[in-house]
């Protein structure tokens, strides 16, 4: 652990440094407009000329007036500490002191990130469970039936080539027309993204026993279901977990994409609302919450994997 801390910190510091530097040219136009309003003389003075000038040139010509680059209210690129403040305000402060916070109302505030992260989490988990179940079933079918492999696999591959942002609104509209709304449409999109890695991994895993292991089962005159339960499924467990880690991250993406057009809460809704109102730090805060959620989910799968493999005796 001690040996890895240095490199990890170095990478984080490098990212933060690049970020802070990038804030200057990204926000230079707004910074200069604000400085001009406060009476400073910026070059060029003409706003139209400024609009057409390059960002780097503006920075170099106005080095004296860049102090506000990291404190703009609606920055194009908010500085990391601004996002940190936004995160703090929309989680701890909102819940502790807000009128709708958990302290004053007894339930999570719908203006806080925790509430929205929770919505996304449940849609993700539900979609992941559906996707994983479907993926395992498809893989079992594909391994046992050549016809199924020929007929299903191409569609599974095609399904993953369609951009999900294009498909998500259609899924939502279709499901709405048959009376399904709320969490389920999001879960369906999330299942749509997560079943594929599970299918691919499980097909490989179910086929991982070598010929002599299958021959051994044959000498016992074992039925196909016995071979599946006693050999193929246990042998596929390590492959399954590798797929689940990809699948759960894909599920999260699916849930967020599913929240974009609906605007009924969730991190996706939060991101879109932020972009409507120019609240970039709200978008970034939601992005970071999503990343944290993804890390937590993948880590949980990893922990489950370690426990399962240890219990199976294969470490």
């Amino acid at each position, binding site marked *: 652990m001690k040996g890895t801390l240095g490199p990890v910190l170095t990478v984080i510091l490098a990212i933060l440094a690049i970020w802070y530097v990038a804030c200057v040219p990204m926000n230079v136009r707004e910074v200069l407009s604000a400085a001009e309003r406060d009476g400073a003389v910026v070059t060029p003075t003409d706003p139209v000329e400024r609009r057409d000038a390059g960002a780097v040139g503006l920075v170099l010509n106005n080095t004296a007036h860049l102090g506000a680059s990291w404190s703009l209210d609606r920055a194009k690129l908010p500085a990391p500490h601004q996002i940190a403040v936004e995160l703090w305000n929309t989680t701890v402060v909102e819940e502790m002191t807000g009128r709708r916070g958990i302290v004053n109302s007894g339930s999570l505030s719908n203006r806080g990130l925790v509430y929205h992260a929770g919505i996304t989490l449940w849609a993700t988990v539900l979609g992941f469970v559906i996707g994983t179940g479907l993926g395992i079933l498809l893989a079992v079918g594909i391994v046992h039936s050549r016809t199924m492999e020929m007929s299903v696999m191409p569609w599974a591959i095609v399904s993953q080539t369609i951009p999900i942002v294009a498909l998500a609104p259609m899924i939502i509209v279709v499901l709405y027309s048959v009376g399904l709304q709320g969490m389920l449409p999001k879960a369906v999109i999330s299942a749509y993204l997560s079943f594929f890695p599970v299918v691919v991994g499980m097909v490989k895993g179910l086929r991982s026993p070598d010929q002599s*292991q299958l*021959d051994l089962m*044959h000498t016992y*005159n*074992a039925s196909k279901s016995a071979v599946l339960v006693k050999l193929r499924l*246990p042998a596929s467990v390590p492959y399954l977990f590798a797929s689940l880690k990809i699948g759960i991250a894909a599920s999260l993406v699916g849930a967020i994409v599913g929240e974009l057009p609906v605007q009924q809460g969730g991190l996706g809704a939060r991101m879109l609302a932020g972009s409507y109102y120019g609240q970039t730090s709200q978008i970034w805060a939601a992005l970071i919450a999503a990343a944290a959620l993804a890390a937590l989910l993948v880590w949980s799968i990893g922990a489950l994997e370690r426990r399962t493999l240890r219990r199976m*005796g*294969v470490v």
Partner: protein
Amino acid sequence: MTDAVISAQHLDLTFQTGDGPVHALRDVNLTIDKGDFVSFIGPSGCGKTTFLRCIAGLETPTGGDLTVNGMTPDEARKARAYGYVFQAAGLYPWRTIGGNIRLPLEIMGFSKADQAERVKRVLELVDLAGFEKKYPWQLSGGMQQRASIARALAFDADILLMDEPFGALDEIVRDHLNEELLKLWARTEKTIGFVTHSIPEAVYLSTKIVVMSPRPGRITDVIDSPLPRERPLDIRDTPEFIAIAHRVREGLRAGHQED
């Protein structure tokens, strides 16, 4: 003839490959009696493993007759007439030694109590008592192979088919396991078919040695061993042993010269 457990007449097996037909077995005639210990020896490609797999119903001959316990090999397989030991122990890493031995018993539907009793008995038979709860990776290669033999013995088939079971082990372990296998054979009175490419191993273990040669795979000599059933390891230094080994070597060489 009444004692014949395995009987092959004019057995042929031809594989169709991209390079044309491969004659894995041609005109194989052999009778194995109850309680025999039969070794199949020959260079790779001579069909010794293929013949064993035919007996097990894992390959289907393209001509001739083959009966196991008076049935076709496939019927015998379904009647669970034999236990098969592969070259690799092939224990499931996610099952304990006991769990691995229980595998065929679970598939064949033995009762829980019966399973436990059988696991205990065969573990003692292969000298692995006390290892029931260990995982395969905790055992040496020789112990793993003994566990796989126990697995093949657990459901009390009369025939034990072994495909180079000790091929991957070093000579010292191999000697020890050969001795153990003879004791086990004497105690259980099983009929054993044993594939090997070691002349001393074949001569030491067998009551009948089948010498085979490749292209096409066929039997070149069948030697009925005059050695007594009781065989200490140092029997390998006796003139009788050396004479049989010599005859096996001659048979192998003759097979090669016909190429």
